[in-house]
């Protein structure tokens, strides 16, 4: 619940008792005393928190309508780029991490941020829901996860991400790749009585897609007690490097 809504509720309560002036004073006092406290169970929007799994029927991914240059590109270019990132344990970035199961969502009780983590060694996804705008592109260093801001439209969390780099695994489900010019809009929505989480991904990038490319992942709520593990990555592991790349001189670099 936002601070403004708290204030409005308190105001209405006091209005009912006909003591508006005291109500305003009390509301201010309430905000002062609770600014560092959270009511357990209260959060902005539907509660998306928890661990969410992908299963065999989770992905609904149509083929992307690729721009001509992308459509005629040798597929090995993308493959080698991504395998190199995996071999050297680079950050995978978005959208790769959204396809690593389970994802763990923690939605701040104060409504200011939604954090998403995955089992791979990758920076957490910080989705700022405190009303801020995107970071200034003049000073923001592009990153594999981009810069994400979110807001609620009814019961849907809408996340807008720009500021991507070309680092990591850049392949997009259905075709195409993430580039520094990509714009991603995700819509998170609980379905099936809260047992599933629908996330639709819509990518726009004029050099990659002829038209916006949209697909959906429907995650299952993980059983109670599920925990997120750490899938570590060791770039010095020669056996792993040989398996991934046939060891083109990389492991001993």
């Amino acid at each position, binding site marked *: 619940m936002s601070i403004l809504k708290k204030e409005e509720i308190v105001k209405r309560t006091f209005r009912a008792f006909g003591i508006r002036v005291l109500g305003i004073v009390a509301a201010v006092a309430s905000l002062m005393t609770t600014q560092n406290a959270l009511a357990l169970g209260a*959060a902005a929007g539907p509660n998306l928190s928890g661990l969410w799994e992908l299963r065999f029927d989770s992905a609904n991914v149509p083929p992307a309508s690729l721009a001509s240059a992308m459509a005629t590109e040798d597929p090995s270019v993308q493959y080698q780029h991504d395998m190199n990132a995996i071999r*050297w344990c680079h950050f995978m970035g978005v959208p790769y991490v959204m396809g690593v199961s389970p994802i763990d969502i923690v939605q701040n009780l104060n409504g200011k941020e939604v954090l998403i983590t995955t089992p791979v060694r990758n920076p957490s996804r910080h989705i700022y829901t405190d009303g801020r705008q995107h970071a200034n592109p003049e000073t923001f260093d592009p990153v594999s996860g981009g810069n994400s801001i979110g807001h609620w439209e009814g019961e849907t969390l809408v996340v807008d991400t720009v500021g991507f780099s070309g680092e990591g695994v850049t392949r997009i489900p259905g075709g195409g790749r993430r580039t520094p010019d990509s714009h991603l809009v995700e819509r998170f929505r609980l379905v099936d009585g809260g047992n599933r989480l629908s996330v639709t991904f819509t990518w726009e990038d004029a050099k990659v897609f002829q038209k916006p490319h949209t697909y959906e992942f429907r995650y299952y709520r993980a059983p109670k007690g599920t925990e997120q593990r750490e899938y570590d990555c060791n*770039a010095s592991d020669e056996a792993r490097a040989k398996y991934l790349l046939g060891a083109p001189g990389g492991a001993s670099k």
Partner: protein
Amino acid sequence: MALSQTATSSTKVPDISGFWERKDEFGGGSFGGTLERIPKASIKPEYIEAAKRAAAAAARGEVVSFGSKWCLTNSYPFFMQHSAAWDIAQSQDEIIQAPEVHTFARHIYLDGRKHPDAEHLQRSVNGHAIGHWEGDTLVVDTIGFSNTGGTPGGGRVGPGTHLVERFKLVDGGKTLSVTSTWDDPAIYLKPHTYEMTYHKSEPGTYAFEEYCHADDEAQGGSVVPPPQK
């Protein structure tokens, strides 16, 4: 705005979410001043000797760790003593500490679960952490570390190490105090306790991604020269 997550309890807990960062309050601009104030751990003689041997090797110009060159995962509590900020996201059942440094997010489960038994424990760099609120203090109990790294004050971490931390807001919420107590009969002669404080970052702070590229020749440069002996 719909509120399908209705309040299930009138209990209120402190809001410790947001970005927190260390500041050197006692030194001359580096973090040395702060770390030097941490009491020295009382550890077994063999660990003291091992630390001396490592220090002597480093003084001779020997490489004592290739962790930086290979961008290996930083183990807990590395990010707690690093200058980079870390972010807390807080829900009713879980708290995540999301550091910028090269490691995994730390998950602290608050849903009443217990630690797994030894047979089912999956060791990890952040260990298995469960927490609960004691009044305005978050108490976190951690076991199951996979690493053999160090702690502030010269302590060590091992497979049998047990950590208890107490997180508490002070200074009107501007500062977060974290008291850590490490114990492990294989390492410590007595529990090693110290306190570190973290300052709330300004509103609008956002996280960086701290890259480390093991395939970048320059990444290993800091540990390759001078010529190895």
